[in-house]
């Protein structure tokens, strides 16, 4: 049995972590390398970096950050944001990433998943889906959640995995930032439709939300940003809670 993974997510813009991190004892709360080290020491099972800067320069800086983090942090690293080609994938994997996450670029050109999996293996390819409810279903959005692609999110997850994605990072646009809990129905629909791990993102506010995501949403991993960055809770607290709920976590 695999442990439920707790994955801090750092949004990075031109080399600086945005959505400021409010820990005590941090020399530079905007330094992604230092934060990754802190989270790794704090029990993170994996670390995700999202390059939210849309510029070429931001991507170049991200590559250097990954290179540096991979010299100091020895848990799996996932990098997303601005990855548009197999060449972009290669660059970031060579720098030290273990997985690359693609969102808009895969919707625009699904062969990116096929080709990425063929070259680097499915275990490196994460399909990131930003989903928003439309009546009884969900649509996959592009451009940072601003544009409706019109594609059914569950169908897209199934296609993405068939094309070679080895994991789904599922973000609920509706739940994101509300701290009112995950969109459990969306999670369950996707997690029961695909044979690969699903990472839940968006909406967590309380400890019980994590247990619900795993138990009811069938999530394999939990991606967290502001709850950790703002010091509302620590990874160890979440793991202790899940352990008390009789779920497997890595000590």
């Amino acid at each position, binding site marked *: 049995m*695999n442990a439920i993974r707790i994955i801090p997510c750092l949004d990075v813009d031109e080399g600086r972590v945005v959505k400021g991190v409010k820990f005590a004892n941090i020399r530079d709360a905007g330094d992604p390398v230092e934060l990754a080290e802190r989270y790794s020491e704090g029990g993170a099972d994996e670390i995700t970096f999202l390059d939210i800067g849309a510029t070429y320069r931001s991507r170049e800086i991200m590559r250097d950050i990954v290179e540096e983090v991979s010299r100091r942090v020895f848990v799996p690293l996932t990098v997303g944001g601005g990855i548009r080609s197999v060449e972009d994938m290669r660059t970031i994997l060579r720098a030290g990433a273990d997985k690359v996450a693609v969102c808009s670029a895969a919707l625009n050109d699904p062969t990116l998943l096929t080709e990425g999996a063929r070259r680097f293996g499915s275990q490196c390819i994460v399909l990131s889906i930003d989903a928003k409810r439309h009546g009884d279903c969900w649509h996959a959005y592009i451009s940072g959640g601003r544009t409706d692609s019109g594609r059914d999110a569950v169908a897209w997850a199934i296609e993405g995995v068939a094309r070679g994605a080895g994991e789904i990072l599922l973000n609920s646009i509706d739940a994101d930032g509300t701290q009112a809990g995950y969109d459990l129905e969306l999670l369950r629909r996707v997690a029961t439709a695909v044979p690969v791990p699903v990472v839940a993102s968006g909406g967590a506010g309380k400890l019980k939300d994590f247990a619900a995501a795993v138990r009811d949403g069938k999530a394999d991993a939990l991606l967290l940003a502001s709850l950790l960055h703002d010091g509302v809770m620590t990874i160890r607290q979440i793991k202790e809670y899940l352990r008390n709920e009789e779920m497997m976590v890595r000590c």
Partner: protein
Amino acid sequence: MIGIVDYGAGNLRSVLKAFDFIGIPAQVIGVPDEMKGVTHIVVPGVGAFGAAVEKLDASGFRAPLTGWVAAGRPLLGICLGMHLFLDSSEETPGSCGLGIIRGGNRKFTVGKVPQIGWNRVIPTSDPLFTGLPAEPWFYFVHSYYAVPDDPVVTIATADYGVTFPAALRKGSAVGVQFHPEKSGEAGLALLKNWGRL
């Protein structure tokens, strides 16, 4: 000095970075001749069994690696690197492994395949695990697992729908199914143990 074999099928940079971090000198070796300058050898590996066997043969490492183990010198196989120590694999029928450990490799038939994630490892009393927690967690990424003929070579197991070997030892050859270079403190401690053996 540790030599990490670059036969064109490995995730060797992260292994190199891990040894750098724990202060054990390591270098990449691309040709068998460079084995002269090292005391320990690591065979990393990502990808398919058959392709890795072909690359190992093309780069001329097959005989030198088996000779290395026969001489009692330390060899570590990681993931696919360990699979190569066995005779064969269901992944590529007909493709011959190094035969350092008798047996084959089998595909998982239950659960989500590949296994990608952290799993708990139950070690025997092998020195590879000295100083680690009693049941340490390691990071796994694989679809196939080793099935050695002689169960005595299994020095640690893990469970993923089926109990499978997480680590093997035969003489001076050690294989680990997980990725110590991605397994946080436990992984670094294990690499340190091995590097000192």
